[in-house]
C-alpha cells in the first residue's frame, strides 16, 4: 500500500484528502506544520508528499527545498490555492503543481501517475 503524506495547515483539507485517498487505497498520514512533516518523513517512508504552500509557520517552498535536500527521491506535489507560485522557479523542483479545487480529479490523476499504482 502506497503511503501519502498530506501537509496542510487546514484541518478540513487534511481530513478531506485523508478520507478520499484512504478510500482509494492509499495509506494517508497528515502534518499541520513543516516541522511535523519533516519529523514524519524522517521516521516513515512515504511514496509521495502533498504539500500546501501557504503554511502558517513556514513557507511550503522552504519546506519543499528541505524535502529535496533530505529526501531527494521523494516526489512532492505542490497543492495550493494560489496559481501565482507557478511562476516561481523554486516550485520547479516539485513533481507537480495542482491548484486546490472541489474537483479532486487532477490531483488524483497526478498522484496515480507518480506512484504508478
Amino acid at each position, binding site marked *: 500500500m502506497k503511503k501519502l503524506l498530506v501537509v496542510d495547515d*487546514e484541518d*478540513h*483539507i487534511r481530513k*478531506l484528502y485523508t*478520507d*478520499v485517498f484512504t*478510500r482509494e487505497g492509499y495509506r494517508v498520514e497528515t502534518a499541520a506544520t513543516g516541522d511535523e512533516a519533516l519529523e514524519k518523513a524522517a521516521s516513515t517512508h512515504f511514496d509521495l508528499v502533498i504539500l500546501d504552500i*501557504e503554511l502558517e509557520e513556514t513557507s511550503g517552498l522552504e519546506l519543499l527545498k528541505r524535502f529535496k535536500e533530505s529526501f531527494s527521491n521523494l516526489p512532492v506535489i505542490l497543492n495550493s*490555492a*494560489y*496559481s*501565482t507560485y507557478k511562476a516561481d522557479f523554486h516550485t520547479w523542483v516539485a513533481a507537480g503543481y495542482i491548484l*486546490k*479545487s*472541489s*474537483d*479532486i480529479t487532477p490531483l488524483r490523476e497526478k498522484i496515480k501517475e507518480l506512484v504508478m499504482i
Partner: protein
Amino acid sequence: MMEILQDVMTNEYLSFLKAQFDDMPLGIFVTDRQGIISYMNRNASSILGYRVPEDASGASLRDIDAVINASLMNSLSQIVEGRNLVLPEHRCSNRQGHFAILNVYVSPFRRQAEETLGIIGTLQDVTESARRKAELEEAILELSILAEVSEALSSTADLDEVLRIILTGVTANQGLGFNRAFLFLIDADGGYLEGKVAIGPSSPEEAGEIWSRLSRQQKSLKEMLEDYSDRENVSNYSLSSLISGWKIPLSSETFFSRALQEGMGINVTGRDELPESSREIMRRLHTVNLAVAPIISKDKKLGIIAADNQITGKRISSSDVKLLQTFANHTAVAIERSRLYDNLVEHAAELELINRQLAESQEQMIRVEKMSVIGELTSSIAHELRNPLTVIGGFANLMLSTGGMDGNSEYLNIILAETKRAETVLHHVLDFSRASRTKTRLIDFNQLVTATVQLLNSKLRHRHNPPTLRLTDARLPVWGNPDQLQHALLQFMLISMEELTDGCNVIISTLEREQKALMNIDFSGGDQAKPQIIKTLKQIFGSSTGTQKLSIIVAGETLRYHGGNYGIENVPNEFPRIYVELPQYKGGSDEETSCG
C-alpha cells in the same frame, strides 16, 4: 509832446527824458488832435519801418495805418474824446514787409486834467514771444496727443488693437491729422517688411463722408481712441488690402530701409530722385508725398509708419515728419510690449497645458496604484475562499461517489454545481488580482492589443476563425498596468469570439481619436450572423448575470481605473461596434514603451 513838457521842465531834464524814451523797448508815438505825428521814439520808428524817428516827422496816423493796418485814424476822434484803443497781438507787417505781431495801446494825451492835446500810443513787438508761445502750444498739443494715445495703448495688449490705435492717432484730425496711415512690421526672420494695417479713406468721396460724420460727432481724440466702433469706421479695409500681405525686402534700396538704417524719419516727395524700388512703393500707395518714420525699440527695428495727405494734397512739412517720428518712437514700446505679452500668454498656455497633463497623469497613476491595492486585497480574499470551496466541493464529491446519502444526491449535485460556479468566479477574480501585482508603466497600445490577440488565439485554438488584426501606424502610448489591461482587453475579445458562429468574423483594430487610444471590435458576416452578434452584445452590455457579466464588470472597472472606458458604437449600415478606449500618455516622449 516835447512842447507840452517844455512848459513844465527844464531843457536839461527834457533831453534826459527823450533819451530815456528812445532807449525804451516799447515804441511810443504822439500825435496832435488831427493825427499828425508830433513825436516818435526810436523803437516805434524801427517797428514801423522808418530808418530814424525824424523820417516820420509830419507823417500822420494814416501812414501808420498803411503799415500796420490798425484803423487808428478811424478811431482818432473817439480816442481824443477819452476812449482807449487796445489791439492785443495785432498781426501786421512793417514798411519793409516783415511780419510782426504787435500789442497796440492808444489813449488820449492830456495836459494835466485839461483839454486833450492829441493821442499817445505804444507799440510792443511781441513777434518772438508769440512765436515761442505758438511753439509751446504746439509742444503741449503733441504731448497731449501722445498722452492720450499712450493711455489708449495702455488699455490693451492685443497687437491688432495696438496697431489700430496707433494709426487712429496718426490720422485723427485731433491727432497728427494725416489723411492716411500705413503700418508695416518686420517679419519674424527680419528679412522683410510686411504690410499689416492701413487707416484712412480711399477716395475723396469717402473722405468727405467720414470726415463730415466725425466732424458732426465732435469727438475728442480720447473718445475716438476709446470708441472701438468708430475706429472700425475710420479704418478702411480696401486701404488695408492695398498693403496686406505686401512684403518689401529690407535688402532692397527703399526709403523704408533707409529710414530703418538711419533711425530717422524721412519726408519723401515725388520730386525726389528715387530708385525704382522706392518709386514702386509711391506708385502702389498712390501718393506723391509720404512721411516715413521707423519704429525702433531699444535698437530693435520693428517696422515703419508711413502717412500722407493724399486726399487734401496738403504738403507734409519737416515738423510733420518730426512729430510722426516722435509718435513712432512712442508706439514702438507699445508694440514691443504687446508682443512680449503675446509671448507670455503663449508660454502661460503651454505651462497650463503641461500642468493639466501632469495632473491628469498623476491622477491616472494614483487610480492605477489604487487598483493594485484593490487587486492585492481581492487576491487574499479569493484565496481564503478557495480552501473552504475545495473542502465543501471535495466532501460533496466524496459523499456522492460513496452513495452515502442516497436520496440527497440531487442536493449534493446542486452543492457541487454552485461550488464550481463560485470557483469560476474566483478564477476570474484571481486573474485580475494576479495582474495587479505587475507594476504600472508606459505601454505601447498596439503591442498590448497584438499580445492580447495572440493570447486569445491560443485560448480559442481550432474553435473559430482567428480575428483579423488591423493596427494603426500612429504611436499610441498609454500608462498603466499591462497585465490588468491585457486581462481587460481579453475579456471583451473572448466574449466577442466565444459565442460567434462560423459565419461571423471579428476585426480588431486600433486607432487614435481625440487624444485617446482606441481598440474597436467590429463584426462581419451575413444577415444570418446578425442575431448571434446582437445576442453577444446583449450579453456584454445587458443586465444578465453570470460569470461573463462579472468578467466584463471587472474589465470595465479596470479600464475606468486607467481613465478609459468601453461601449457600443452604432455604425451606419454596419454591425454595431464594441470600442475600448484609454487616454494616451502625454508625459515625456523619450520614455520607453513596452507591452509588458
